[in-house]
């Protein structure tokens, strides 16, 4: 009668092995560990609090992404603290600051957090405009950093080409455009006239470029017929929408996100845009799930940027996700987003690295040992299997995208389970040590060069 889930299978294994050997073997996944599987800490660990600095959007339209990130971080911290903290001793204390203060203010705040608050870890950050400024400063300060987002390729291509202290858990940005291109080409193989509406900064440029690169290989003869570049924080999209309609495209690629996307889809709906063209997005399901109303049209390719939507992997298929969604809903009375998953997984990755390092060296491990453990680490997270590549400190997990559909069980649209596609991440990202921009090529990203020279050729 008892269903064999992956977790209790693993736990049973652990119990059996513990009986056989005197050293308790340890399993690592993003979530609280059952009491009987508690780790045995080597050496003496001080009970000094583990101070964490977290910068994310606490205000502005991007708060739609910042808020779930903050909640994911806090949930993980509370769970880890309930076990006594890292190694059962060091409880996590988090100080927050608002990313909306702007790049310069964020850099100053990072320095202040390190120099006067003496933080042990820096985390958070949503905007790709900010990580390239914060990354080099974190390296200079020698501050262990786990960015949750801010996923521009530029960070590890150019700004911090040889990272030591800086990691990024979620997604590499070029994969956004490529994932949507694969989804769109699969759904609408004859859509040759492409329009694009993107926020007018690095993210939008990146999505546009990589979508077109991939899409033109997947749909031969596809051309770009219309471009709209609303600035971030736009509330009136009607002139952009009318322009897009006037150019009669077959398919629209939309990288507009956060509160901007909510305003966009509502206006597009009333201007009949969704009747005139197919729509593919990179971030329609990127904010809190309940931010999108039931009036959102069905059959829109809804991207989730860092490859997590709470209904996938489906209930009963991946216990790490089942437990996470349940605990998150219990704590915050809402469903998690990819930012929640990223922030949550970050702390558990670090926890696993600290525990492994402790097994090796005993006591509280130096940052260098923790970093050595993080490099190449793989772990089960709510979204699936996450792997930190040692060459660029970037987290990789398979890309997912699906079509919108209304389901009476939820007060917001969700993915149609039959439409979800999973793309192995190695098929859409440049492999380790692929030449970076400015070395053997001058493309905007290593991924662009890899796509152009090798992809589907």
């Amino acid at each position, binding site marked *: 009668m008892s269903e064999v889930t992956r977790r209790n299978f693993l736990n049973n294994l652990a119990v059996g092995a513990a009986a056989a050997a005197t050293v308790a073997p340890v399993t690592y996944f993003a979530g609280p560990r059952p009491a009987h599987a508690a780790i045995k800490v080597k050496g003496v660990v001080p009970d000094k609090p583990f101070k964490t600095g977290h910068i994310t959007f606490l205000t502005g339209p991007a708060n*739609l992404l910042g808020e779930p990130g903050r909640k994911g971080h806090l949930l993980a911290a509370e769970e880890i603290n309930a076990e006594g903290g890292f190694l059962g001793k060091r409880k996590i204390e988090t100080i927050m600051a608002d990313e909306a203060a702007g790049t310069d203010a964020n850099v100053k705040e990072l320095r202040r957090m390190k120099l006067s608050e003496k933080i042990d870890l820096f985390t958070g950050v949503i905007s790709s405009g900010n990580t390239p400024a914060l990354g080099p400063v974190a390296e200079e300060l020698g501050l262990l950093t786990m960015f949750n987002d801010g996923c521009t390729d530029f960070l590890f291509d150019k700004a911090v080409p040889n990272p030591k202290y800086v990691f990024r858990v979620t997604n590499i940005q070029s994969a956004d455009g490529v994932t949507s291109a694969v989804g769109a080409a699969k759904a609408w193989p004859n859509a040759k006239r492409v329009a694009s509406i993107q926020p007018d900064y690095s993210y939008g440029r990146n999505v546009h470029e990589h979508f077109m690169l991939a899409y033109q290989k997947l749909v031969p003869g596809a051309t770009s017929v219309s471009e709209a570049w609303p600035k971030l924080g736009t509330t*009136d999209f009607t*002139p952009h929408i009318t322009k897009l309609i006037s150019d009669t495209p077959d398919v629209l690629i939309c990288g507009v996100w956060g509160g901007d996307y909510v305003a966009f889809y*509502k206006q597009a709906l009333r201007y009949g845009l969704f009747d005139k063209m197919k729509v593919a997005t990179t971030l329609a399901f990127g904010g809190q799930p309940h931010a999108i*109303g039931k009036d959102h049209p069905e059959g829109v390719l809804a991207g989730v940027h860092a490859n997590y939507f709470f209904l996938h992997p489906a209930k009963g298929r991946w216990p790490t996700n089942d437990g996470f969604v349940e605990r998150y809903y219990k704590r915050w009375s809402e469903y998690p987003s990819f930012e929640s998953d990223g922030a949550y997984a970050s702390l558990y990755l670090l926890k696993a690295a600290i525990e492994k390092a402790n097994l090796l060296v005993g006591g509280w491990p130096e940052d260098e040992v923790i970093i050595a453990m993080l490099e190449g680490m793989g772990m089960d997270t709510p979204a699936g299997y996450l792997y930190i590549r040692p060459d660029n400190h970037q987290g990789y997990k398979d890309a997912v995208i699906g079509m919108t559909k209304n389901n009476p069980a939820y007060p917001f649209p969700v993915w149609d389970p039959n439409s979800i596609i999973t793309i192995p991440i190695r098929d859409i990202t440049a492999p380790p040590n692929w030449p970076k921009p400015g070395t053997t090529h001058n493309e905007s990203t290593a991924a662009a060069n890899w796509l152009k020279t090798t992809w589907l050729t």
Partner: protein
Amino acid sequence: MTGTIFVIQLLNALFYAAVLFLIAAGLSLIYGVMRIVNLAHGSLYALGAYVTAWAVGGAVGAAVAGTLGQIGLFLLLPIGAIAVGVLGAVIEPTLLRPLYRRSEEYHLLITFGLLMIIEDMLKLIFGGTPLTASNIMDGLGSISVGALPYPTYNLLVIAIGVAAAVGLWWFVYRTKFGVILRAISQDRRMAAALGINVGRVYVQAFAIGCFITGLGGAIVVPAQAAVLGMGVEWLIVAFVVVVIGGLGSLEGALVGALIVGIAHVAGIQFFAEIELAVLYLIATVVLMVRPTGLFGRA
């Protein structure tokens, strides 16, 4: 198709200009009468949007729609404007009055502080998720322009913008209160010496300026959404309007809003890449040719 697109883009421009005029007119009225550059003006606009969205889109709206139907929702629409007007009547005597004798830097500091406070209060009260009032808009349906739908509600917003322009003109140039306003604006001491209660007129003028801006937020929210940060976005464009039209001038706000509305839409349709630059280019040219704006006084 080209004709259809032209008509719709023209309507888009008028819609944008109507909302922008309400914000810029409030800004100009307040500056014209009491010489205060109100940096919190955009946030007051956002407050109007949030209050209306909360009332119309939430439980209150559902209850009113249940008893009075669509008409009930329209009666509820101005609630955001009223709330902002009332807040204005509180802000002026408490926060601004002590500052009139001080230099302009103090005005900027206190209204900027107010901006931050209102932005945070909005998040604290209404949360980070966008609020909508689309039930009003959907109730009105849409008309056909050529082969394309155009929301009827947007026409109503344009009509409200026109009515507000006519109403304000009549109010300032054809009523006794308007004469008093203009007198104070020209020479405050002389007006006071003639027995006008300047303090009371200031409260009224500030509340009216806030009401107009709140009305902009209230009527825009069924068509868009109340989102955090919306105030700052519109504040910047409203400043472009008053730079072009002349700070303190109602005619300037109207003409400036029309110029910005049309340039904004034309920029998006014809040169999407540099649309933002077009607005600031116009403002720059106006500043070089007429530093006080088209209708401004030195």
